[in-house]
């Protein structure tokens, strides 16, 4: 049943301009980060790691969460339009599958975005003349960042489901990211979903911020994921639709 729901959600993304956003938006932090790196070669001496700090400074702090917010808003916008809520809620499928299918699709698009940023990082590194391949540790950070999208993805899906506006949840994701930057600098990353993402990506850091073990990160991630998924499914079950 869930697979069928995922297929249905996937169909909704066909020929949508979400793919353009997925490809074009990550280009901006990649170019900005590389430009910054090239201009500060005197200070940024750790090659691939230094380039990572520059690209993730812009990408994780300011672009990643709004991008996920954009994907979530798009998926829910289709339901907010033309009384589609009525159709959605009268489908003979459990509401948890509706939500989880949307989450799976958001996660799939996010995974592609992360792969794309990885490719861009590699290309920018090569353009800057960096030797060898991307260090394995950075690939782990990229993977961790993708995992962390589960926390923000569920929160953004919840927001986009409750708030009928397309743009407001995206605005919230940007402000959340910026607050996340402050919270992260204060050392409370585990308690704010947008900071968990920064922690996962090891944003703007060349030393691993999770060198003492990934357990707190994973616990925080699971807690946010379960909390927001639980609230969302409860909301879908209990609240009447406003078509």
């Amino acid at each position, binding site marked *: 049943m869930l697979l069928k729901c995922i297929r249905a959600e996937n169909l909704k993304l066909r020929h949508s*301009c979400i793919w353009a956003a997925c490809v074009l938006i990550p280009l901006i932090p990649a170019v900005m980060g590389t430009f910054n790196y090239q*201009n500060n070669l005197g200070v940024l001496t750790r090659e691939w790691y230094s380039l990572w700090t520059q690209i993730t400074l812009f990408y994780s702090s300011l*672009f990643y969460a709004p991008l996920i917010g954009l994907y979530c808003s798009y998926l829910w916008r289709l339901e907010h339009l033309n009384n589609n809520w009525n159709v959605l809620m009268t489908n003979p499928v459990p509401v948890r599958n509706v939500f989880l299918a949307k989450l799976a699709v958001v996660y799939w698009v996010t995974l592609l975005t992360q792969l794309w940023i990885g490719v861009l990082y590699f290309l920018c590194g090569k353009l800057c003349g960096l030797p060898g391949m991307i260090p394995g540790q950075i690939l782990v950070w990229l993977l961790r960042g993708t995992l962390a999208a589960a926390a923000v993805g569920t929160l953004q899906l919840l927001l986009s489901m409750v708030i009928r506006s397309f743009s*407001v949840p995206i605005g919230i994701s940007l402000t959340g990211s910026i607050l996340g930057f402050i919270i992260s600098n204060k050392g409370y990353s585990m308690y704010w979903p947008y900071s968990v993402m920064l922690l996962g990506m090891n944003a703007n850091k060349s030393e691993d911020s999770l060198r003492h073990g990934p357990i707190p990160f994973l616990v925080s991630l699971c807690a946010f994921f379960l909390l927001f998924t639980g609230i969302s499914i409860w909301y879908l079950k209990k609240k009447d639709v406003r078509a």
Partner: protein
Amino acid sequence: MKTTWSQTRLAYKAEIQKQRCRKVWIVPLGFLTVLTLWVSVPMFHFTAQDLTRGYQWLFYQISLLNAIFVPMMLAVTASRLCDMEIKGNTLKLLYTLEKNGRFYDIKFLAEARYLLLFSFGEVLVILLLGKLFHITEPVRLLPFGEHFLAVSAVGAVLLSFQHLLSLMSDNQILPLCAGLAGSFLGLFSMYFPRAVNLCIVWGYFSIFSVTGINWGQVPEGADYNDYMQYLDFPLPGFLLFSAVGILLYLFEKGIFMRKEV
């Protein structure tokens, strides 16, 4: 026979009615709150020396942050107000009641009041933080007025662009992406040479900043805050920018008026 003025007033009233219970004011207020939090955190560690140039520092930081915050805030505001017409497919009906040009202007005015609210809020935030953190620098009213003018004018030009995109796009992804991209282009433009910087409208928050740093004078390792100073407001440049902004608005309005509904 109703006069043009009374028709415009009625149309504006109708626009305000549409915004009832939509709580659009939360958008500028939310962005203002985050901006306040951002600038106030370092102020807890200010020394007596820092407090003597506290307002200059605030103007400088807020101008930088505006490049990130304002384009996105305007994209969200414009999209929220224009999307109601797109979602409801109301344009056909609206055009039987009012001219499409007037509708475009009134909608823009309804959005611009949130921009003004934000600009005014920023001035109040600077004054408030000055009182809260006991900034010892004397308050000079002129920079406050110039800052308000600069944020409002640059914001209005950006808003006109977002306004057009939001009304023209059936899918609001495009205006939101443009806002997001604009945010970072504005930030990034500060790294560009001056000539290129002048071509990027999102970067004008820093161009019209009332304070600045002469980076050429800052020695290696020195605190750049020591070299911060009030700048002469570039009035001719500002007037030229405003004139180009008005022409741009008229051009955008022309594009919208040709749209088939």
